[in-house]
């Protein structure tokens, strides 16, 4: 308060003094005028103007004189170009600088949190890599020294050994091939105008190397980048080694068994347990055909049911309470109804859930890893299920960058964003991964995996062959001759290297009839009360014969020239060339359907990449209603639903007359009927 007061007083004082000054000046002027007749005096005018400029303002206490001197000194110190054009901005900046705090300790100490956290995470990883490199270099140096010693000690060295050493050295100089590959490929992508900035390429290669060190992968490659709203996804494609595959399959089967037991357990009452165990025993005896998984499942169910009974005997839990409650409920209904009335049964059948392909097969041949920040851990994506793929075909979404985000969409997507991402990856790679003809070949040795893939392959043989051709591991053809440029410019000489995904959402066609039969059998097992199952069976087979026709399988390595879009006019592929300063130009194949999917080829190097939003090109705009039935198709015209003209007034009168007539007749009829009933009874 005191300081403010003093300031005010000062200001007042200065104002007073200035007014006094003026008065004195004017008095002086008057005297000067009288004394000397030189009136227009420059000195006096300047003094006047300066005094006016030095007046301090009421609001800020600053004077224009000081401000101008500060601006001019700043301009002369810094000497920016064309100050006149933006003088007002310049003077504003000077004003702002004046009011900034002189000693900005807070600003110095404060680091932006995001930058700091990323630096803290990034640094240890880089230090680790640095140390590894140092170690390798040291090892190298030591080896060289040892060699030198051996050379000096034994002067007579056989030439062959020397060559071997050289070879070893060569091998050691390069680190792992993946790093070299990624950088090399990125170099080619850069020539084609696609790729990331330098530091991002580096951290990407480091991250991929981290994946590569894992022993369970036989091959690792960078798949691409999908943009999200908050974060971008970097995606790596890995193929598992056979050992790892077997382990995974075992683990998955165990998990499935446990999962399938749980819902059953909840429903089991004591009686049902017995019946089910009997039924499963029956099932085992009846189904002799090779359904190993089924048998295992039922066996496990039997075992666990015993376990549960023992557990529930020992400790009373909620389940028993529920059971008693259920019994009470049941008692409310008269049991006689079951015999006297036919309970109407719904004709609705739940659509058959098509099982997902096992890991290492079809859509799930490769495992995909994803990360949003390159210094974080890679996260494995779950397997793609046919249902997810099918729903993902019907919706169009941007990714958010959070793997656990839910996907609000009209056909409800089963799962979170990680499932959606996996489905989109499967669709993109199956439709856009291409290579020049004969670049890849089918691995003929590995028939083992395909052999016991699905149940009941024996149904039709032709179908089986197709399937084998469709889903097989491939490898780079060692005897591939690079195609000449004029051939590469034609789509006939390009082929798909990933199998097409069927409408069903799988690569191998799954026969739904088998599943339905199994389901019916399961129903038998669970509730052995119904005796009408035989009739149902027949119905079901009829339905499935109509609904589920096996889809045409497109064999692997089909030509890209046959690709066509159903509704769109555009051609699905565009071929481009790189700049001609490379000796043999790179050929780039660009997908118009998944914009952002590219493939390049140079001699013996071929790579696919996807950089984009993960949205398919559609010429028509997306509309969720198009999946509902059309209004006029909702109720098909038949005997029940007929369209007729509205009755006129005359018609209505006639109808009323007829009604009266009928009523009279009916009364007599009713009497007859009642008579008949009495007779029958």
């Amino acid at each position, binding site marked *: 308060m005191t300081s403010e007061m003093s300031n005010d007083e000062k200001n007042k004082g200065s104002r007073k003094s200035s007014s006094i000054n003026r008065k004195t000046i004017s008095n002086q002027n008057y005297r000067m005028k009288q004394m000397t007749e030189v009136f227009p005096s420059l000195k006096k005018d300047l003094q006047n103007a300066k005094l006016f400029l030095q007046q301090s303002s009421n609001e800020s206490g600053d004077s224009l004189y000081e401000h101008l001197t500060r601006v001019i000194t700043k301009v002369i110190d810094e000497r920016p170009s064309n100050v006149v054009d933006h003088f007002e901005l310049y003077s504003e900046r000077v004003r702002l600088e004046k009011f900034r705090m002189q000693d900005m300790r807070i600003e110095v100490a404060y680091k932006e949190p995001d930058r700091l956290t990323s630096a803290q995470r990034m640094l240890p990883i880089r230090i680790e890599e640095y140390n590894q490199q140092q170690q390798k270099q040291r090892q190298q140096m030591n080896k060289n020294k040892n060699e030198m010693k051996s050379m000096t000690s034994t002067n007579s060295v056989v030439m062959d050994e020397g060559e071997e050493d050289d070879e070893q050295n060569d091998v050691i100089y390069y680190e792992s091939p993946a790093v070299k590959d990624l950088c090399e490929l990125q170099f080619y992508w850069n020539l084609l105008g696609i790729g990331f900035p330098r530091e991002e390429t580096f951290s990407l290669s480091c991250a991929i190397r981290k994946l590569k060190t894992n022993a369970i992968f036989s091959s690792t490659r960078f798949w691409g980048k999908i943009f999200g709203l908050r974060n971008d996804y970097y995606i790596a494609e890995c193929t598992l080694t056979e050992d790892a595959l077997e382990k995974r399959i075992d683990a998955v089967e165990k998990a499935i068994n446990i999962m399938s037991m749980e819902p059953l357990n909840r429903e089991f009452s004591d009686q049902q347990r017995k019946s089910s165990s009997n039924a499963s025993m029956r099932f085992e005896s009846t189904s002799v055909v090779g359904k190993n998984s089924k048998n295992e499942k039922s066996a496990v169910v039997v075992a666990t049911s015993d376990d549960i009974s023992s557990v529930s005997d020992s400790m009373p839990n909620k389940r028993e309470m529920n059971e008693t409650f259920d019994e009470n409920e049941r008692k409310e209904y008269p049991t006689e109804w079951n015999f006297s009335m036919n309970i109407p049964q719904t004709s609705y059948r739940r659509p058959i859930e098509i099982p997902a392909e096992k890991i290492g097969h079809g859509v799930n041949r490769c495992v995909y890893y994803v990360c949003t920040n390159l210094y974080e851990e890679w996260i494995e994506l779950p397997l793609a299920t046919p249902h997810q793929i099918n729903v993902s075909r019907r919706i169009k979404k941007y990714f958010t960058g959070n793997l656990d985000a839910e996907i609000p969409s009209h056909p409800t997507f089963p799962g979170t964003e990680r499932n959606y991402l996996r489905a989109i990856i499967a669709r993109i790679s199956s439709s856009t991964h291409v290579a020049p003809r004969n670049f890849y070949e089918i691995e003929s040795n590995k028939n083992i995996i395909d052999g016991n893939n699905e149940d009941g392959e024996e149904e039709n043989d032709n179908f089986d062959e197709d399937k084998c051709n469709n889903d097989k591991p491939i490898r780079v053809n060692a005897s591939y001759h690079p195609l000449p440029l004029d051939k590469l410019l034609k789509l006939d000489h390009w082929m798909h290297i990933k199998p097409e995904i069927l409408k069903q959402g799988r690569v191998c066609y799954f026969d739904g009839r088998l599943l339905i039969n199994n389901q019916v059998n399961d129903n038998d097992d669970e509730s052995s009360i119904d005796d009408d199952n035989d009739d149902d069976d027949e119905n079901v087979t009829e339905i499935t014969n109509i609904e589920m026709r096996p889809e045409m399988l497109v064999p692997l390595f089909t030509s890209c020239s046959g690709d066509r879009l159903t509704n769109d006019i555009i051609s699905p592929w565009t071929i481009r060339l790189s700049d001609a300063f490379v000796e043999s130009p790179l050929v780039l194949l660009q997908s118009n359907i998944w914009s952002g999917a590219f493939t390049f080829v140079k001699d013996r190097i071929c790579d696919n990449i996807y950089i984009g939003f993960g*949205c398919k090109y559609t010429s028509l705009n997306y509309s969720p209603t198009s999946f509902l039935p059309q209004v006029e198709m909702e109720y098909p015209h038949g005997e029940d639903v007929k369209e007729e003209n509205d009755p006129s007034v005359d018609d209505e009168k006639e109808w009323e007359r007829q009604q009266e007539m009928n009523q009279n007749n009916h009364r007599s009829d009713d009497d007859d009927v009642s008579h008949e009933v009495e007779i029958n009874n």
Partner: protein
Amino acid sequence: MNVEAFRENLELMSYSGFKLKELEADLIENSLIILQSSNKLQNIFFFGRIETTSEENSYYYIAFGYTCDIFKDQKFFYSLNGFEWVMMPEMKPKLLPITLQSRSLLTGDPINVEHVCMMPTFIADTENVFRACPKKPKKLKEEDRLACIVHLLMTESAIMPRSLLYRQVTRCISYNPSFAGLNRMEANEMKNFQLFRYPKNNRNYNLSKHDDFNYQTDFFDTIDDLVPRNCFSFQIKDRDICLIRALHWPGMIFVHKLNTKYQGFFYFGNGRKNLDLLFMT
């Protein structure tokens, strides 16, 4: 992006995942500098490239410049090979709805005429039955379509950081030479990014968004008012790179290196607006 700092901007551009090829970049940079001097432009910008389906003329390269006022005296140029620049025809407002209805991609031939199927109009009968009256397909020359696309892109999705441009005392809008970049705190707020167009909103409304408003720089429309809300995705990358993608025009990207004057927007896309945005976020 400004051709003055072409190489720096190219480096920023690569954060989008796409780059210009070496030869392409050289051709564009040098030819644009020559174009600037021959047209007496004060500044010239490389706007981006639009993909076509043809294999010979694979892209339309687009550039624009101004003589005095950055918005009033804009001139647009396009090129099929990256060095022979042609003046873009003036945008015809009549053709804007037809452009939005067009379903196909650009063909790479500027004189190609396309027949666009228009949405039918629905007319009620005397008995209140709605009938669809299919309209005649309308003709659309590719050159005009290009002009419309670029106009839409510029007005709807081109953005700039706050106080990049300012209005001089002479009412002429030009570059602010004292622009020193946004800092990280500022870059997190949408109101600090403005649309690169002549403002359409009320001036006082635009000014009222900022506490420390400045009459010279803050009268532009900000991007938080655009009608599909959240039609921009914000990302701040590791090395202080602020990356903004326009979701209603996929391919339109704005990059700004924080605390420096390097910034720019550019478009690498196929020239189709994403009308499905409301379903997609």
